[in-house]
């Protein structure tokens, strides 16, 4: 572990903290454009965070310590996830801390905490949201794991950095299995980030919401942390998707030059990814909550198919 590597790692974390709300703002802006609405400013999420951090926290009188610690745990989880997902360089000193399987676990931990916190106060919406969140997580996790297995089989490793290195830094080979895995991953990301076909991040329509239902009771800096964590999650998933399926441009070493080259590329890829996300959210209608299992079942099935196709087509010479 070199100093420059450590610096690169720190830079990646700081970049994640800075870029995550921007990505959220960008997606919102694109969505507004696509829906012919006047768009909120690109920096709106920063203003939100700034405002929330200055406000007082209002706690329910029966809130336990879980409710109070949850935002910090969630924020920490997301930050860790961003740290181990290669966005600029595959040389991440923190990467050995968790491989892809553990990464899924980190997301799982965050999910458990947010659901616990949601049910802690005992309001109807909180427990409703918490239960729905667990349902979706329960279905999305296996699909995500299958996607990761497919990738792990290609690169013979479960470490994110190694997977990205294998895929990015060698001759171009078409992996049909990646097409399946990619679609499955998209499905999972949409569900996990409370995006349109499964949840609508922009609505407080009571009976359909999932993510918003869970954080209704939060306020002030707690809410700020949770909102920021949600942005980080979107950023983490975006980076993971980009790293796994469009890994070109991620630097192998920790040279300044490599990093400098990787930043604009990352920005560009995130911008395109965000626009695509907005497009998906615009052309699709939110599905009924009872259709969500079907949606995620499809994702799981696609991931399994990817694995099978990998076994059938790509293992032989």
């Amino acid at each position, binding site marked *: 572990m070199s100093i420059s590597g450590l610096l690169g790692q720190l830079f990646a974390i700081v970049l994640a903290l800075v870029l995550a709300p921007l990505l959220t703002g960008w997606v919102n802006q694109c969505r507004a454009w696509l829906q012919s609405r006047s768009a909120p400013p690109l920096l709106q999420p920063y203003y939100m965070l700034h405002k929330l951090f200055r406000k007082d926290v209002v706690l329910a009188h029966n809130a336990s310590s879980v409710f109070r610690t949850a935002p910090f745990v969630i924020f920490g989880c997301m930050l860790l996830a961003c740290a181990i997902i290669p966005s600029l360089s595959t040389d991440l000193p923190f990467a050995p801390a968790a491989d892809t399987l553990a990464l899924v676990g980190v997301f799982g931990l965050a999910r458990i905490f947010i659901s616990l916190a949601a049910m802690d106060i005992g309001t109807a919406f909180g427990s409703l949201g918490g239960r729905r969140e667990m349902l979706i997580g329960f279905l999305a996790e296996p699909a995500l794991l299958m996607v990761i297995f497919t990738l792990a089989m290609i690169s013979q490793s479960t470490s994110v950095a190694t997977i990205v290195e294998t895929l990015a830094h060698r001759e171009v080979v*078409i992996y*049909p*299995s990646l*097409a399946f895995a990619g679609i499955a991953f998209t499905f999972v990301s949409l569900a996990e980030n409370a995006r349109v076909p499964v949840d609508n991040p922009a609505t407080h329509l009571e009976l359909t919401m999932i993510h918003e239902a869970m954080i209704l009771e939060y306020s002030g800096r707690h809410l700020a942390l949770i909102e920021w964590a949600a942005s980080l999650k979107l950023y983490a998933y975006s980076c993971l998707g980009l790293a796994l399926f469009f890994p070109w441009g991620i630097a192998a070493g920790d040279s300044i030059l490599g990093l400098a080259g990787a930043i604009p590329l990352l920005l560009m890829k995130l911008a395109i990814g965000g626009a695509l996300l907005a497009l998906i959210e615009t052309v699709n209608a939110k599905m009924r909550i009872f259709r969500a299992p079907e949606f995620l079942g*499809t994702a799981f099935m696609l991931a399994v*198919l990817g694995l099978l196709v990998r076994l059938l*087509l790509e293992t032989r010479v």
Partner: protein
Amino acid sequence: MSTIPLSAQLINLCASVILLLAFAMLAQRRVMQLINLFALQGLVLCLSTLVVAVTTKQHHLYWSAGLTLLLKALLLPWILHRLVRKLYVKWDIESLVNVPTTMLVGVVLVMIAFNVAQPISLLSQTISRGTLGIALAVVMLAFLMMITRTKAIPQVVGFLAMENGLFLAATSATYGMPMVVELGIALDVLVGVIILGVFFFQIRDQFDSLDIRNMERLKDN
């Protein structure tokens, strides 16, 4: 590990997309979308045949690819579209088994197909041999679609998709059947669809619907 030549990679990609489309058809709830998916499948099938043709310089495969494009990607979808419009079919497809269960059964079928085809495709010398498993899987998925759907048109699309799978099998295992046979098959499929088109009108006239569940009168007792 990556010594698979580029053309084979392309063929594999096409085959995978065909498999993906087969699943999409299985999950599709709208008649029009289903027909479009079928047309797309025909198009990808034509592309994959073209890749095989270019790589192996098998001239009759150009003809097969052209025939596929004409018949499966353009003519048949067009006929089906017209039928749906003329018959005012209700656009929602109903399924006997719910979609997730169908999908799970589908995955199991794919596993079976891959297992059956694996040892056999190893014996082939063609560049596209790996796709034999996918071809068998597509056939089985189409079969599944035929037995789980309750409307006449999806059943026919299933039948045609099965035909696509068979065509893929022919190109993947042996670079296509002899031309006489291929022409014969194409003719049969075309005539079949036309006859069915006539048939649809009769069924609708008699039952006021294209729902196959109306047709359960004939039983053994």
